[in-house]
């Protein structure tokens, strides 16, 4: 029994410490936007709405959130669609060199997220007439996310029983029908997870939109966030904290919806 009690105490302490560790940094985001002249101190706010007022009047703040939405949702849709098809085919048909291909792509995808790749990507966008185009940016962002998305989705696909598909096949369903009617609903949590992952990735991406979009009206929130500084590079904490909050809310809401509706979980484990 003492062991049991000790176990409970240990568990509670651990959970408390974890919660503290993970919430502590978030406190500032809750307090600063509501404070008149925020510093880095977390204090009980005086609940002013002035900062929000300022942000609402900011010419680019709200449109940039909309742009972020367009970019991230667009990318997520493209990534999920293409990755699902590819992951399904790779999971079900042993194309030669499949595993090596995936690993190589995964490695290359890390190079493309690095700063050194900005010149080639920029030049590529110029040559393909994709500069200043949100669609072009979506293509480029998708290219970087796809390998990891395929890699993760393939695990989901591998884990689904094949008898569902066979059964549909005996009824005469075509491969595309099988994917639509059976596979997609079965791996929906996986698709949702990948979608959230893609959105979160694009949502926070600064460099690519900054380089490839010329028009501020098309710039996403990540870029606008960086403009909330003064001439000398000093942070305008009023705007930054408030905009930071607004900027965070959509992803959080999206996560809540997705996790409620589809469950948010990972599969994974390279098959040996």
């Amino acid at each position: 029994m003492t062991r049991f009690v000790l176990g409970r105490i240990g568990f509670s302490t651990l959970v408390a410490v974890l919660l503290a560790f993970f919430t502590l940094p978030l406190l500032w985001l809750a307090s600063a936007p509501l404070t008149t002249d925020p510093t880095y101190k977390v204090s009980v706010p005086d609940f002013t709405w002035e900062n929000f007022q300022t942000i609402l009047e900011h010419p680019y703040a709200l449109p940039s959130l909309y742009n972020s939405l367009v970019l991230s949702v667009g990318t997520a849709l493209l990534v999920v669609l293409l990755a699902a098809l590819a992951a399904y085919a790779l999971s079900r048909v042993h194309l030669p060199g499949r595993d090596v291909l995936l690993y190589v792509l995964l490695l290359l995808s890390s190079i493309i997220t690095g700063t050194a790749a900005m010149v080639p990507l920029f030049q590529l966008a110029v040559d393909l007439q994709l500069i200043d185009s949100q669609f072009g940016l979506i293509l480029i962002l998708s290219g970087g996310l796809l390998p990891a998305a395929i890699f993760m989705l393939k695990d989901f696909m591998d884990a689904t029983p094949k008898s569902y598909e066979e059964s549909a096949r005996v009824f005469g369903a075509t491969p595309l029908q099988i994917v639509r009617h059976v596979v997609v609903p079965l791996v929906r949590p996986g698709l949702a997870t990948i979608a959230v992952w893609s959105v979160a990735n694009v949502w926070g991406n600064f460099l690519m939109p900054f380089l490839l979009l010329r028009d501020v009206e098309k710039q996403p929130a990540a870029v606008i966030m960086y403009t909330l500084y003064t001439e000398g590079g000093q942070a305008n904490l009023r705007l930054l904290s408030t905009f930071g909050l607004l900027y965070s809310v959509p992803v959080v809401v999206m996560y809540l919806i997705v996790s409620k509706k589809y469950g948010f979980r990972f599969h994974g484990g390279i098959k040996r």
Partner: protein
Amino acid sequence: MAQATSLPDTTEEQPARRYSEDAAGLGRLRAGAFTAPALALIAVFLVFPALWVLYLGITNYRLTGIAAADPKVVGIDNFLTALANPRFWNSTWLTVEFVAGSAVIGQAVLGFTIAWVLRDRRGPLRRIVEGIVILAWILPSAVVAFLWVALLDPRDGTLNAVLGLTDFAWLLDHPMLSIIVFNIWRGTAFSMMLYAAALGNVPPSHLESARLAGASNWQQLRDVVFPHIRGHVLTNLLLISLWTFNDFSPFMLTAGGPDGKSEVLAVHVYNEAVRNGSLGYGAAISTIILLINLVVAVFYLRLLRSKR
């Protein structure tokens, strides 16, 4: 006695029952068609620029100046420069610390711990803990950077307030520790989710037979859980190491400072390529990072595959 004490071996060896994996009857052709759009996009927007980066690595290309107008192929000069540059070695070593500390040890262990502790809990507690951990993961990095600057501020920071310290400059005195802890905070969610899924695959009966034999918690982990989740551990380590290797967010906390004490390779590349304009050199370092990643990946694959 023959019949009663030993059953006939009706099946000597059963190879894994697989039937055709191609349950939907895709066939190679259609499988190719399914993968083609993704591969095309990847080829144009990933493979091609990545190869371009590799090419840039052997030129003296710069963002501005004469070398921008007329870059020349300089062979392995950039690599030699890097290898002779103590900053590069410093960065490499810091990156090793960063990856090992924040990803391999930090995220993986903490993520596993959370998943393990919550493994058979349902209800609000689990949802809250998971939700907050995931929150740290999905918030945009620009916002997160500010949260941590605010947290670690020597004068006004929440952390010092909580610990009762005054003017303790975390980012100055312990820059690596700070960014390591930061990255643990930021990235644990992925490991947590992956391990939560993995633990769901460990047959409860295996854990229970170990418990019945009297195995301690640690023995259960070693003898039952780990062998089962080996594949997940591999996926996890592979991905988080890769991501952490290329993670640029420490820049937003310390900008590599003070004095390069937290200049991990991704930041080093940024400093060289953007601040310094040495794109060729930056690309060469990216290539080296790629090679290190390759070695690490092969190492993991070897390690976790060796003992089946």
